[in-house]
């Protein structure tokens, strides 16, 4: 069977508009969701580290709940159930047209779909990010904490200047993975009718039946976005001192024995 690929069916006119708008919408919701997820992760971490059982219990319940249910069900819940509980005046307000809330290429962020997608992605991803950060903190040797405490560091200073810098550097790869996951999972918001990239690609299919070309373009765009995001996160993220110190230590040890390092 010979395929005649017709890229013009996807990359010109109305379909092209849809692809551009969908791509940027995916980008916007990824950014908004990432910010929300990061803020929530910090809050959850603080809550977990404060003394007291209530805070810890809450965080444990949060993590268990959000990790053990599908994101799509969470999105459906926020969109169909939780959103409807908001005061009616709010919902009318959100339903209005707001020129000031329109981002480039005519994408408004003040719509029920955008808000629910951001909210759902942020809350879901925070549960996963928190566990990655925690794993990073746990990977810092206990001697670091003991040294800092013996130097008179407060709990907060210990976290801020000793544990987090090392823990984040250790766990940066899986943390990057979670942000990339958030981007890919934003495709599920198509299930609540949010017009991001996946939604717009399926729209092309029903518009002119260029399914193959559409899927190829969508796949390429997600891969591209993932590569760029991954590169940016690694380039600007915390870096582990690349085995320099252990190597020097090893050299010093193998040469001079106890140097008092």
């Amino acid at each position, binding site marked *: *069977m010979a395929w005649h690929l017709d890229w013009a069916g996807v990359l010109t006119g109305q379909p092209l508009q849809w692809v551009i708008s969908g791509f940027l919408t995916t980008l916007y919701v990824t950014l908004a969701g990432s910010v929300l997820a990061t803020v929530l992760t910090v809050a959850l971490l603080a809550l977990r580290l404060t003394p007291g059982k209530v805070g810890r219990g809450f965080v444990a319940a949060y993590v*268990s*709940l959000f*990790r*053990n*249910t*599908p*994101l*799509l*069900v*969470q999105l*459906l*819940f926020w969109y*169909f*159930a*939780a959103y*409807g*509980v908001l005061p009616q005046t709010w919902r009318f307000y959100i339903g209005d047209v707001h020129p000031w809330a329109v981002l480039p290429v005519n994408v408004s962020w003040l719509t029920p779909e955008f808000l629910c997608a951001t909210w759902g992605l942020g809350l879901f991803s925070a549960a996963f990010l928190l566990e990655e950060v925690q794993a990073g903190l746990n990977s810092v040797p206990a001697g670091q904490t003991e040294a800092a405490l013996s130097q008179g560091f407060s709990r907060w200073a210990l976290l801020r200047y000793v544990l987090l810098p090392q823990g984040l550097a250790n766990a940066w790869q899986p943390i990057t993975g979670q942000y990339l996951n958030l981007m*890919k*999972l934003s*495709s*599920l918001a*198509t*299930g609540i009718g949010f017009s991001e990239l*996946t939604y717009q*690609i*399926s729209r092309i299919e029903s518009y002119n039946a260029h*399914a*193959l070309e559409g*899927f190829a373009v*969508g*796949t390429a765009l*997600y*891969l591209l976005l*993932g*590569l760029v995001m991954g590169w940016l996160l690694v380039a600007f993220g915390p870096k582990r001192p690349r085995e320099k110190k252990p190597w020097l230590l090893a050299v010093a040890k193998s040469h001079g024995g106890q140097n008092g390092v």
Partner: protein
Amino acid sequence: MEFDYSVLHDNFTYLLWGRMADGQPGGVLLTLIMAVSAGVIALLLGIGMAALAWRFGGWTRRALFVWAEFIRGIPLIFVIFWLYFLLPVVFGSSMPGALTVTLALAWFTSAAVMHSTLAGLESLPVGQSEAGIASGFSQWQILRTLLLPQAWPNLLPSYLGLLISLLKDTSLAFIVNVPELTTVAGQVNNRVQIYPAEIFLFVGLIYYLLCATLAGIAGRWMRGGNRGSLR
């Protein structure tokens, strides 16, 4: 918010097994069927790929890694879209939706199974392979009789973790309208309109119970495994 549980009572069996009486399983039952069969296929496929990467290394391994990166780099829903498009081309006729989604899930998960398995195989002391070679074992014998059985206890918890992801991922069938739990819940919600909270909380609870049970088992295995190790 006041809850009215009658909607759950009225649609209980539909949520649990769909139109089972008409020979079309749905709801929780279809979710479980899809998750288990996709899990079995993904396990065989993933271990097979890990064995190939372990045995041949070099370009085979690189090609498999690129393949796995590609699968993990795109959203799962696109893997489902691709199979919806490609399977009829390959097999000449359209396939049932549930089968297509199951195969897509298996395909997607096999990449993760390959990575876990390979990591498990490579964490074993190299002396095990060397002892096998010295005893005149072939490469496949080493893999089957020495390495896999030893790696197995450490691999089980990570396989269970993947099964949990798989179980949650079956919900994506909603987007292509295959009547598993999430889709069925969406149908009931569209029909009755006014009880979304009851419906989606109930559905969430079912997923939660299934996943938390599996996570509990995985956790117990992991602790058991650590106790038995040489640390």
